[in-house]
């Protein structure tokens, strides 16, 4: 801690009463104080450090410091072959590994102009939507725990466990899958996988509703999140926000719908945005609501995929996997909708090498977090926790 303003300027002592801030005393002598939140702090969801300049309970400025998990992903990419980059992408957003693999493979396949077998696409969408639900469950559960609600956390992790078990059965790993390959898949799904997924969907629907009733309609939770950290739609776009964060501000934008890839154009799903009845559009509660509603949409997508999926006759998941990935000279920007927003890969190929000349990952968390300084200005310290939680960052992807 560091004293900045010894003399202390005339300030206010504030208190939050219902939805408005009430001035209790005027002209109190306070000192500005630098408070370091993190890197080891449970509510920063990893190793993020926020240097907060506080005046009493009010945060006047919060500067994020990152890089504690920087592992030179982009430098590694320049030294390994295209298919060998897939496991690295798992380790970026480790809560949604399959979605990261999907984004990378979409980019490379666009550069290679590859035709992917239909069954592969369906399996890819099923596993990535399962992973999306698992990721949103972590987001919702840890957000609840940030705000002091322990039970929803246990509910979320119990159901996430079912998904991880299914994915482990299909891919052989619980979190770092290396399942989606450039041009195909590592394996076909095991026999009986579809039945187990359908069983899970019918099991999970009532549980999701229960979670909704327990948390989203909880008065304490609503009081802590409603009207906090409001981000207007135009500023959100200017900040490059994407995914549930952007939709929380009321912008109906989903890459699965607006710049479709894979088989998403054939599927029927809604892009939920808050209607402003329960929450204030753009606040922390809106972002939470979008995640909660998206879980239901993902369940719908999974059901449709299992219904439409082609059979296994003559199917080889590695049929279109190139022996040697060597794209022609050129550049590509490919992207996919991750649970946290737009994950994009800018890849530059020189046409000779089997590893990219430059591979830049446009991380959704990194971009979403960049608005933290503006979002936190003038907030109370407990609200800062609510705002960080609503951003749902994974530091593995922020730092890469």
């Amino acid at each position: 801690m560091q004293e900045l303003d010894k003399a202390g300027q005339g300030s206010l002592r504030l208190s939050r009463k219902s939805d408005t801030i009430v001035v209790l005393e005027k002209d109190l002598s306070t000192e500005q104080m630098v408070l370091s939140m993190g890197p080891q702090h449970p509510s920063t969801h990893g190793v993020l450090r926020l240097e907060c300049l506080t005046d009493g309970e009010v945060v006047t400025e919060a500067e994020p410091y990152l890089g504690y998990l920087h592992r030179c992903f982009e430098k590694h990419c320049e030294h390994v072959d295209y298919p060998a980059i897939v496991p690295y992408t798992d380790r970026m957003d480790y809560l949604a590994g399959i979605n990261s693999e999907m984004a990378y493979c979409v980019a490379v396949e666009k550069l290679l102009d590859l035709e992917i077998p239909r069954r592969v696409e369906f399996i890819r969408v099923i596993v990535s939507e399962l992973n999306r639900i698992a990721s949103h469950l972590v987001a919702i559960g840890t957000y609840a725990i940030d705000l002091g609600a322990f039970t929803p956390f246990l509910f979320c992790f119990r159901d996430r466990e079912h998904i991880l078990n299914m994915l482990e059965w299909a891919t052989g790993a619980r979190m770092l899958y290396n399942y989606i390959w450039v041009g195909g898949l590592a394996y076909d799904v095991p026999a009986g996988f579809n039945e187990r997924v359908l069983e899970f969907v019918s099991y999970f629907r009532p549980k999701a509703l229960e979670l909704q009733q327990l948390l989203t309609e909880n008065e304490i939770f609503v009081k802590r999140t409603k009207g906090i950290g409001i981000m207007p739609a135009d500023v959100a776009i200017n900040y490059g926000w994407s995914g549930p964060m952007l939709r929380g501000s009321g912008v109906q934008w989903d890459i699965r719908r607006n710049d479709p890839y894979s088989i998403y154009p054939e599927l029927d799903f809604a892009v939920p945005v808050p209607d402003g009845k329960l929450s204030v559009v753009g606040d922390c509660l809106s972002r939470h609501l979008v995640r909660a509603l998206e879980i239901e949409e993902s369940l719908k997508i999974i059901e449709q995929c299992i219904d439409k999926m082609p059979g296994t006759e003559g199917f080889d998941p590695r049929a279109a996997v190139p022996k040697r990935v060597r794209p022609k000279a050129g550049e590509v920007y490919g992207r996919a909708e991750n649970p946290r927003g737009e994950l994009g890969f800018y890849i530059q190929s020189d046409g000779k090498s089997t590893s990219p000349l430059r591979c830049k990952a446009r991380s959704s968390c990194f971009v979403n977090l960049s608005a933290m300084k503006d979002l936190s200005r003038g907030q109370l310290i407990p609200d800062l926790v609510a705002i960080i939680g609503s951003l749902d960052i994974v530091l593995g992807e922020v730092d890469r």
Partner: protein
Amino acid sequence: MEEGKVLSNAVQESGAAYGVIHEKFGEAISAFDDNATMPFFEVLDTALWTDIALFMRDHPKLKFNYMACLSGVDYPEAGKLGIVVNLESLGVFNHRIAVKVKCPRDGGSIPSVAGVWHTANWHEREAYDMLGMLFEGHPDMRRILCPDDWEGWPLRKDYKVQESYHGITVPY
């Protein structure tokens, strides 16, 4: 453009957007590269980059309100560093285009567009951190992922990692 080449709809839309920019800035920007994976043009007069960015964001026919990505790139053969900016018009039009800006490798700088798109702030800091080009007019030009006292620019092709950092041996 090659004769008789069929362009996809997306590339045609980017081409139309390019036409509007070319009309205004003329020789300051290069010809349009209509490749299928990432259509782009290059800013030849680097000093005009901020003006071009503002024009692209605010022109009623362009409205590139969303910067998807900004990647720093090293071009060792040409002795240059550069950025590749992926822009699109989110919710207004359907066009997207990439812009390249280059600067000399030694002591080069590129005008900052952090005032045009807020998201460019951290992206430019990252490009500086990794490649070492400066962004003129950037509000907060510091390293972001590496520590402040790290030596060298990791994503340059000729980068050699430092021997030790605060007494810790770096190469493994």
